[in-house]
């Protein structure tokens, strides 16, 4: 089954060309991409992720607010009882912060040098490794890819 990804753009920065390129690249890799537009709050992102029941939330953030946004997303997911949606990030994120984000449970951080292929491969690997398909599908696990 196609991997479903939420491409989320939190905060006030008004720049979503990169997020749209990512959305399209993931689409062309056969994924189902929910695109929600600019200016998302962590609450909006988590609500959309829960309702859409995505495999992965991809957060694009250029404004430097990542150490505020990611902890809130992770906390909200936990509050909602969601333990099987993977979170990844990309954009402008300082190297020093990457280990801190990983400690929060963010599965991967893609820096500005990452190609769309890096992104696709990374997401596919994360879904394979941590995704819910195997947990959810139980007896029918063979049917999901």
């Amino acid at each position, binding site marked *: *089954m*196609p991997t*479903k990804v939420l491409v989320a753009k939190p905060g006030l920065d008004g720049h979503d060309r990169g997020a749209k390129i990512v*959305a*399209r690249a*993931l*689409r*062309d*890799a*056969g*994924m*189902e*991409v*929910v*695109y*929600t*537009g600019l200016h*998302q709050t962590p*609450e*909006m992102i988590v*609500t*959309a992720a*829960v*309702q*859409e*029941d995505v495999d992965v939330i991809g957060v694009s953030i250029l404004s430097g607010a990542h150490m505020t946004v990611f902890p809130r997303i992770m906390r909200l997911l936990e509050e*909602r*009882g*969601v333990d099987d949606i993977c979170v990844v990030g990309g954009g402008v994120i300082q190297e020093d912060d990457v280990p801190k984000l990983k400690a929060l449970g963010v599965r991967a951080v893609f820096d500005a040098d990452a190609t769309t292929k890096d992104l696709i491969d990374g997401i596919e690997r994360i879904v394979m490794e941590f995704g819910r398909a195997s947990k*959810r*599908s*139980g007896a*029918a*696990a063979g*049917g*999901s890819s």
Partner: protein
Amino acid sequence: MDLRVHRDLARGITAIENGYASFADAAATLPARENGRQAFVVGVTGPPGAGKSTLVDRLIEKFRAAGETVAVVAVDPSSPFTHGAVLGDRVRMQRHSGDTGVFIRSMASRESGGGLAPSTHDAVALAARAGFEVIIVETVGVGQVELEVVAVADVVVVVTVPALGDSVQTIKAGLTEIADLFIVNMADRPGANRTAVDLKHMVRESRRDIAVLQTVASDGTGIDDVMLALASARASESTNAERAVRFEVVRNIRDAAVRRALAVLDDAQGRSVLERLRAGELTRSEAREELLVYALPEVINAD
């Protein structure tokens, strides 16, 4: 509405969509519907870019103001080449994000060609089971023949925009035949009255009692009239049941025939016919005839 219901409904839809649970299994995870009233299912269809999502956003607002819970199932197209999809209908409905009385789910159309996704019917039924009072189904942007929404909605709203064509477009078959309500959106643009008049003529000639309304969904103009028309359709126990069943029977038989045909083309006898075609032992029409008789003998012989 309890956020846990949102999560369980979302998971139920995924399970059905990806084929790892039956409808009954998915429904069993949800609390039984409390009020005895049936959900009211509104279908919204029309060409790409006509403003369907923006209109749906307005309808959510009005139904919520009237105290009703609303689920939206919005379908966007899957690529026939990569199976990927970009699902962008939520963008227009963001402001309802914090409202637990609103549930919005996007679906990729996957292999379905009728304007909905293969599991849209089940998603709607599941949302009804979860207790949502109004369910709005937004189709992919359609052309003239993607009519699947008629099989799922109580009321079908066809949204169009000014100047998509002359009055001949309004007498063509297909989309115009399934409308219970026409909306000419972007009615602040030139040609809106002309488009509305053409539709009204068509409606009068077909002797159906269908309203033709004009809206500007982006600023809310005309939405109150849409709500009145929907309320009257809801009260009148619309006649959509027969139409829906007819449509579904035709579709199911067609789908079954397609499955049979694909199976035949794939089995030994089918492959041998294709092999002989490739080798030049059969002409195209001979090969076609042989496969048809093999796939659907009762139908072909009757013809």
